[in-house]
């Protein structure tokens, strides 16, 4: 996971303190932090899709695309909450549905990593492993999702940061 250059601290503290991530994941984050210093925007956002979205703006202030992005933020926050709840209830189908749902809208905006992780959640929720083959049992699935969910939230935060700063620059 590459973290945004602007807010590495934020993400890390958030993740580690708020989400109680398992240590292996936090180690991974730390490691990646050292590996990658700069943000790789290409990895984060699919510029083709995002540019297409920007294209649809009527004028320079990106009103339409920004409202769409804001809408997406809301939707994502909601979905994360629902995911947390579903995870508590160990409701795999629900998790899968939520993953699919968020995957779609992430893809629409072009947030590649979020989309991929959502797809993983979708598959795991269906008791398929990360690439779609069947074979997971429920407890394993729950465990995996418990690990992945913080990841997707982090990726989302990263994307959110980037988009917010992007629009800040653009609209002013």
């Amino acid at each position, binding site marked *: 996971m590459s973290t945004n250059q602007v*807010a590495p601290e*934020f993400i890390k503290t958030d993740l580690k303190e708020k989400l109680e991530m398992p240590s292996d994941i936090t180690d991974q984050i730390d490691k990646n932090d050292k590996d990658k210093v700069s943000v790789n925007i290409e990895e984060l956002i699919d510029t*083709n*899709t995002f540019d*297409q*979205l920007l*294209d*649809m703006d009527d004028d320079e202030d990106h009103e*339409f695309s*920004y*409202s*769409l992005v*804001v*809408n*997406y*933020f*809301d*939707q994502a*926050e909601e979905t994360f909450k629902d995911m947390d709840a579903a995870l508590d209830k160990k409701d795999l189908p629900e998790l899968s*549905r939520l993953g*699919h*749902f968020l*995957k*779609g*809208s992430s*893809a*629409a*905006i072009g947030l590649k990593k979020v989309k991929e992780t959502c797809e993983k959640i979708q598959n795991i929720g269906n008791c398929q492993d990360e690439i779609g083959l069947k074979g997971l049992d429920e407890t394993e699935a729950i465990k995996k999702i418990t690990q992945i969910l913080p990841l997707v939230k982090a990726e989302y*935060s990263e994307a*959110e*940061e980037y988009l*917010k700063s992007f*629009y*800040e620059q653009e*609209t*002013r």
Partner: protein
Amino acid sequence: MDQANVKVEYTIPTKRQANGNNKKVINNQKNSSGNTRINDGTGSVPEFIQKLFRMLENKAFKHTFCWGPDGTTFVVKDTNEFAKTILPKHFKHCNFASFVRQLNKYDFHKVRNAEDGQKPYGDQAWEFVHPKFRRDRKDLLEQIRRKTPGKHKKEEAAAAAAAAAAAAASSSSSTIGKDNNNLRSDGIKASQEDELNAESLNEIRQLTEKLQTQITQLELSQSNMETTVQRLSNNDHLILNEFMNLSKNMAAKDDLIRQFLQIAVNRDKETHAQSPSSSLHNNAESSTTSAETQKLLDSYSKVSSANAVQLDNITKQLQQVSPNTPWPQQQQQQQMQQDPTVPSQPSDQHPFNNIPNQSNHPAVVAAAHMNAGSIIGSPLKTGEGLAFVRLGRLSPHMSVKDNKPSLEIRVTPEQAAAANHQQQHQHQQQHHSQQQQQPMTTPVPSSSSLQEPLASTLGMKRKLGGNGWTVPPRVLLVDDDSVYRDLSGKLLQVIGCTIDLAKDGMEAIRMMGAEKYDLILMDIVMPNLDGISATRNIRQYDMLTPIISMTSNFTDNDIVQYVGSGMNDILPKPFSKRTLYGILEKYCAHLKVMQRFQDPTSIPRGLGLLPPATSTDTSSTSGNSSSSRSSAVSSVTPASGNLNENSTGSFIEEIPAVSVSTVTATSAPQPQPIPQVPTHPIPSSHPVVNTPMSTASMAYPVTMNPSMGIQHNNMNSQAYHQQQHSSTMGTATIATQPPPMVHNNNVPMNPVSTPVWSQPPPSTTTPTTTQQPPISMQQQTMMPSGDAKLVWTPNSSSETQAPQGGEFTIASNGIKRRRVNEAQ
């Protein structure tokens, strides 16, 4: 004094801002809910603000950069100087625009001098204000924060309201301010007493704020309304102008028709004079014809008067909106003048033999006749009353909403007449000398020439919808994801479609029940009712509307499921603009403008539309749909059918015979649509507007068609199992398909369609087009989209013809391209 003012202002606003403004800001944020980092109110003053403050305090720059008169704003008197000398010292750049941008980021706003008209600093000066940036309120500085994009608008509004309220209230609070002033000897910190004193003012301020915002909003809406009204009145003017053109054209047409009639009459006289022997033969007929001709002329006059009346009505309505239409009356007068002249023509010589046979709608025919064969502007006395048959001249909605064949093009009576002339002379007077025939040909060119200008005007006026749609496609978008709904909605709007949104399958079904759409974009995974079940449900009563599934799941299994439930195509998510447009082009091709019409040399559409009287293939169930219109149209057909002995085609084909050389040349590349015309009565939804090509092609494939049609029908039913009546589909070609789509016929969508397409090209195109419009259109336009495998699976309820009744709902709201030949 100065100080007092300053203090006054900051006292109250401080309160308000501290209490109300911040709350507003925080409460209104919905986008940064998760991110408190940017907006927390604690912490030190941002560096930019510190610098700014220090710069202002430093009186060294007073001539370029200083506080405003009351200390609530600061002014840059000379931007160039400022940028050159001051900016580089404190900031890293010397760009005034960047400075301004940064100011904006911190929620500073430029004060516009125009309001109070004072320009104490000169025209070059820039004055900035921030509610928390005041000379004497250093404690407020730390509350200045960069704003996040989402809330900036709200903050602006709040700030604007606050500023306005502040301005309004400041004057009233001067007295109180003075009191506060005394308490504030140190001038910076708010004391308890200040707060107490300001409480009461607070409420006043808040009230004022609210009122101010309301006023602003009202003003906004007022200006919006004014703009709308302006726009509407502009539209009215445009419409009126169109009307004027319309009337002029009609008058011109009437003129030409009269001339033509005159010529014809004269010729008849000559004919009779030349061949006394056949005159008996003729007389007998002519006597009959004369009666009928008289009927014709009578109906013409009826029609033209009705025409005038209608024009009058419309003008009146328009006049109500914009009273500048003196011309319609003139037009009417002209028409009235024309009317008497028409009946006065010698009617007994008129060989309008076959046309009058259509006793059903003499008015229609007459109208068509009188309008020089162009549908444009010929009012038809349909069952629903007079309707202007126009090809999208005026608002596209006119034609759409009435479900009238706005594109219904009937055989131009001129050509019909000419054809009749020819026919008559050919068949009945074959023993006559060639001389007789020769004069006959003269009307033809004249009628063709009539149509040329019409055709060109037709072509020019075609584009009414955006992007070349004659009518904006109506799309139903079903998706539970609001992001996708917004995104796709916007994309479709850009293309020029009208969109309805549905959140899930249930809503989609409900909306389908209420309205007809040209296209449905259906998400699969949805709450309440998923896409597949919704599609199944819809397909129970609607076979025609194309349903496209949007989803990111498209394994083979999924695809089979989708098509099995009745979907027509797949649009994988995430989709690009291109793929979406491609789908639209495919399925709403019939709504696209036919560019072909702009070619004046091609046979006017009118020619192509008359159905070859045949309707031999009565298997067409197209009955219900076209109702009066089609019956009116078809009424013309039988007449022509009588005429023709050699071809099943209508008399129209005679005309092509004359100019077929030119037409066929052009039509060569365009195989389809026309061939169909002759054979089968097409369900009404077939686009009436035929390309000139179609006309030409009608000439030759006419004979082929009956057999082809039947053959195709069989093949169709086998190969496609399509929902529509494959039987009826025979002729109804989507005449208006643009050429590229035509070619696509040969590239059917995928394996299933291949067998069908293996027929020889001419016939291939024929059957294809004979498909019911939705299917055929789809097929024709089904460019092999790389992104989805399309498997055509039969719809279980394929053979039910009832719902379709030839009324292809897919195009029901669009221009109903109905084949004239749907003799039902």
